[in-house]
């Protein structure tokens, strides 16, 4: 009977030890993975410096490694805390999925109908219908702004078309062979692919769906335009894909194929391969919209991309259809509007607009000459300008980013929105010094124009007349062209500067040039006549000047380096991935925001899990869980009744009833004991400067005596490993918990410290808590004092620093023991703090007779 009882009793004891051991294992795994995750993130951040070359395979490896560590961290934390943070799993999974999406840029195509009406579209449908149509739906359905009627042909339709026709395999084969360097073969491959797309039959179900959707629009002019999935997100595909204006809905299948084919023009392929999208990515959705009979149209930037500090809205406008404003075919009116609430029109530059693009009754578009009076008159009146500006700000606020907006004004003066996408706001990395306007290094050849892309560059003039000539543009050329040519994207990675005679900073070519950071001046009338082929010139786009020869003082520090790794797509991919991984929003563990549900990044997860894991270890409740019988006992001259449980590598000897201090291998424990043994610490007795304090201590001592085993200390427990210490102690009438981990890995190191209780009255205990708080703060801990309880934590110090601080923490425990009686006033608190700082650990100022002897 007695034997059975004992066996049961011993079994529970063993289970308790196993539980502690398991907890420690989870904790250790969590720490290991935490370190691994932080190392991986640091390694990836280092690659952002621009000193390294890396490829997609590197990103893939690191993302997998990071994901693995984070998943382990979440699992171990929940094992450690009895599943207290189940929501972390979903958050971690979601973040990892988002990161994988960034990595592959290959979102799964949602299974939707082939056609979706505009009235059913919102921003969330971007994966099905492309951002362009999704945003248009958002503007119409959520913001109730005026958009044309219409529908979208979805990415699912694109997928169906490619699969059914066998085009997908054919295209992949062609695209793999498309060389990015050789423009001529790029052209040839592009032509082949486009022919394949144009001639491939649509599967009958898709053709039927398109004709049915087009039916309500029969007899009404339709605009059919690309809305590629992935377009208009982080990359600007400005003008890369086709738009068909004023077409017949009855021919929708053919128009649809035409738009899909436009995905494969040589410039789109170049841009697309340059930006590292693979053949299977970037599905093409198509938007079909009722044509707006536009009196005037244009583009609006809700923020001037060059003068982001100027708080200006930029609007360009032409008569007729907006294509001329977008292509930069003619110089549009340019309006600058203040973003302040009054929306004051600060600048109005009315251009001579001799022609306009209009719809032809038989379909398609035609250029018409305008009478001189209309050509010279502004397209918008002040009220319309302000209405537009207000819409721009509204869209910016709604989408949370400055917007690049296409708009049209119909005959009755209604503003229609045709598109809104994030505006690429570039801040030049080279400092463009403002130059005194009167200073000219040499007389300029040209002294006007509008800056589309800032900076300065020098090179030989190349006059670009026809798109076919693009392959013959030599590297380093200053390209001079009559009107903006998006085709120039093919050479934008190698030319010095662009000058156009007409155009505006809002046209497609300018947007692309900004992306490639090619200094660009537009609206430089007469450039093709003044500048001769082969002539060497310096373009100062910021000052809108072109000088003969090379002017080194203008170029210094203002030429974007050729060697700009940071502009390479794989680098941008890394940047986007890190955006979801490294920013830290959970900063303060004491804040109510410090919750699992508020983790926004992988770094947040590691931070949260590390903190909560330390809390869990801190709250192990060791002295409740362990019985002294199962532990070794420390033989020491310290006034400690100390029992040790070694979970691995903490003791030199195993299974001994008594162990000596020299048997201890645990690094943090040894450090703590060194602090206890500090030569200047006095363990014997307390200091009592007044009678009141003495009585108070005496009363509490009487009360506490029953709880303690010995006068000087109750049972203390140390759970240890080679690197870990959880120390629960009763020193006198104080209760202290110390939990620490020390290793070579800085990220894992921490000390948590808690001190509570004591024999003195509440007032003195609180004073002591304040004093300890001050001292811990002085030692580098983050401290919280609540009543007579002090909690402190320090993390991520080096092995040596953590070890030294642990010594000081040991010393502090002994130091604090003496204080119960001493803290008779706040002034003494200050004196004691001072004494600690001066290493007077036995408080000699309170022991005059001892210090004399």
């Amino acid at each position, binding site marked *: 009977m007695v034997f059975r009882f004992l066996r049961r009793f011993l079994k529970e004891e063993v289970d308790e030890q196993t539980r502690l051991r398991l907890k420690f294992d989870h904790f250790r795994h969590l720490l290991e993975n935490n370190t691994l995750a932080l190392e991986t993130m640091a390694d990836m951040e280092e*690659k952002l410096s621009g*000193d*390294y*070359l*890396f*490829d*997609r*395979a*590197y990103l893939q*490896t690191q993302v997998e490694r990071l994901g693995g560590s984070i998943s382990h961290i979440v699992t171990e934390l929940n094992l450690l805390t009895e599943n207290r943070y189940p929501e972390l799993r979903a958050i971690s999974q979601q973040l990892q999925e988002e990161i994988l999406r960034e990595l592959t840029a290959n979102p799964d195509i949602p299974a939707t109908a082939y056609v979706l009406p505009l009235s059913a579209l919102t921003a969330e449908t971007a994966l099905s219908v492309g951002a362009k149509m999704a945003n248009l739906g958002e503007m119409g359905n959520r913001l109730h702004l005026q958009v044309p009627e219409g529908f979208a042909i979805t990415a699912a339709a694109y997928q169906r078309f490619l699969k059914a026709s066998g085009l997908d395999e054919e295209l992949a084969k062609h695209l*793999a*062979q498309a*060389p*990015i*360097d050789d423009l001529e073969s790029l052209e040839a491959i592009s032509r082949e692919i486009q022919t394949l797309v144009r001639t491939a039959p649509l599967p009958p179900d898709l053709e039927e769906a398109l004709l049915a959707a087009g039916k309500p629009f029969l007899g009404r002019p339709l605009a059919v335009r690309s809305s590629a999935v992935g377009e208009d997100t982080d990359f600007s595909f400005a003008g890369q894909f086709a738009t068909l204006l004023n077409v017949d809905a009855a021919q929708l299948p053919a128009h649809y194929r035409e738009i899909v084919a436009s995905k494969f023009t040589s410039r789109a392929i170049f841009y697309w*391969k*340059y930006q*590292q999208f693979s053949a299977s990515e970037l599905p093409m959705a198509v938007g079909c919209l009722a044509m707006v009979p536009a009196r005037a149209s244009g583009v609006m930037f809700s923020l001037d991309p060059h003068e982001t500090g100027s708080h200006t809205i930029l609007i360009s406008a032409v008569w007729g259809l907006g294509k001329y404003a977008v292509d930069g075919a003619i110089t549009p009116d340019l309006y600058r509007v203040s973003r302040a609430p009054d929306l004051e029109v600060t600048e109005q530059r009315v251009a001579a607009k001799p022609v306009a693009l209009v719809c032809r009754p038989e379909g398609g578009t035609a250029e018409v000459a305008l009478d001189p009076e209309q050509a010279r008159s502004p397209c918008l009146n002040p009220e319309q300008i302000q209405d537009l500006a207000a819409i721009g700000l509204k869209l910016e606020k709604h989408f949370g980013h400055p917007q690049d907006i296409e708009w049209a004004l119909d005959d009755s003066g209604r503003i229609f929105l045709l598109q809104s996408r994030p505006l690429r706001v570039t801040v030049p990395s080279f400092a463009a010094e403002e130059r005194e306007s009167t200073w000219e290094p040499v007389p300029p050849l040209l002294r006007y124009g509008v800056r589309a892309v800032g900076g300065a560059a020098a090179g030989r003039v190349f006059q670009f007349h026809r798109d076919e000539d693009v392959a013959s543009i030599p590297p380093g050329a200053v390209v001079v062209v009559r009107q903006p040519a998006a085709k120039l994207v093919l050479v934008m*990675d190698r030319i010095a500067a662009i000058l156009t005679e007409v155009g505006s900073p809002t046209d497609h070519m300018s947007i692309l040039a900004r992306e490639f950071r090619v200094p660009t001046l537009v609206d430089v009338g007469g450039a093709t006549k003044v500048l001769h082929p082969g002539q060497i010139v310096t373009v100062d786009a910021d000052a809108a000047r072109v000088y003969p020869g090379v002017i080194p003082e203008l170029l210094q520090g203002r030429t974007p380096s*050729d*060697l700009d*790794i940071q502009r*390479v*797509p*794989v680098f941008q991919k890394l940047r986007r991935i890190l955006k979801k991984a490294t920013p830290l929003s959970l900063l303060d563990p004491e804040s109510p925001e410090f919750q699992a549900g508020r983790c926004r990044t992988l770094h947040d997860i590691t931070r949260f899990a590390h903190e909560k894991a330390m809390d869990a270890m801190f709250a192990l409740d060791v002295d409740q869980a362990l019985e002294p019988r199962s532990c070794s006992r420390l033989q020491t001259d310290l006034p400690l009744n100390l029992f040790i449980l070694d979970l691995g590598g903490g003791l030199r000897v195993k299974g001994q009833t008594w162990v000596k201090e020299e048997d201890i291998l645990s690094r943090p424990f040894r450090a703590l004991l060194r602090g206890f043994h500090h030569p200047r610490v006095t363990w014997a007795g307390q200091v009592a400067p007044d009678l009141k304090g003495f009585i108070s201590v005496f009363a509490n001592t009487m009360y506490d005596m029953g709880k303690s085993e010995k006068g000087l200390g109750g049972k203390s427990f140390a759970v240890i490993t080679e690197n870990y210490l959880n120390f629960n102690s009763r020193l006198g009438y104080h209760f202290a918990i110390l939990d620490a981990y020390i290793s070579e890995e800085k990220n894992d190191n921490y000390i948590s410290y808690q001190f509570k209780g004591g024999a003195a009255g509440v007032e003195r205990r609180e004073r002591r808590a304040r004093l300890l708080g001050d001292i811990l703060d002085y030692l580098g801990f983050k401290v919280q004092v609540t009543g007579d309880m002090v909690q402190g934590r320090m993390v991520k110090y080096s092995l040596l620093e953590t070890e030294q601080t642990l010594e000081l923490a040991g010393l502090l425990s002994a130091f604090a023991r003496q204080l119960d009686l001493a803290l008779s006033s706040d002034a003494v608190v200050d004196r004691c703090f001072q004494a600690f700082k001066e290493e007077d650990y036995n408080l000699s100022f309170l022991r005059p007779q001892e210090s004399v002897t």
Partner: protein
Amino acid sequence: MAEQILVVDDEPNMLRLLRTILMDKTGYEVMTTNNPLEVSKLLQEKSFDVVVTDLKMPLVDGMDLIDIIKKVDDKLPIIIITAYGTLETAEEAVQKGAYDFITKPFRKETILITIRRALEWQRMQKELAELKKQ
């Protein structure tokens, strides 16, 4: 005369970056191709001092490319760029006759130093061959 370098990599990003880095204040002349199938033809048309090639490419494996290059010019130093975690293959490549390998990601300086050493080695090989002839 400027040293001629041929760079082979199927990833346009890498190709562009390598070309820019190798031409930045070095005086080297750099030719790039993303098609390993045309390497043999290029080597026959023009004389190169160093070839820098990726190890893993879809059309021709870097290992096979070593053989192809060695067939045209067995003295030509080949520098292999290898991905993270394929160290064994890279070592195998060196055994097969590649001059050296570097592992992605790498610092800009690393590739420049490796090329400089390869060129020096190439020069010494030529001098040695001359001396042997004498």
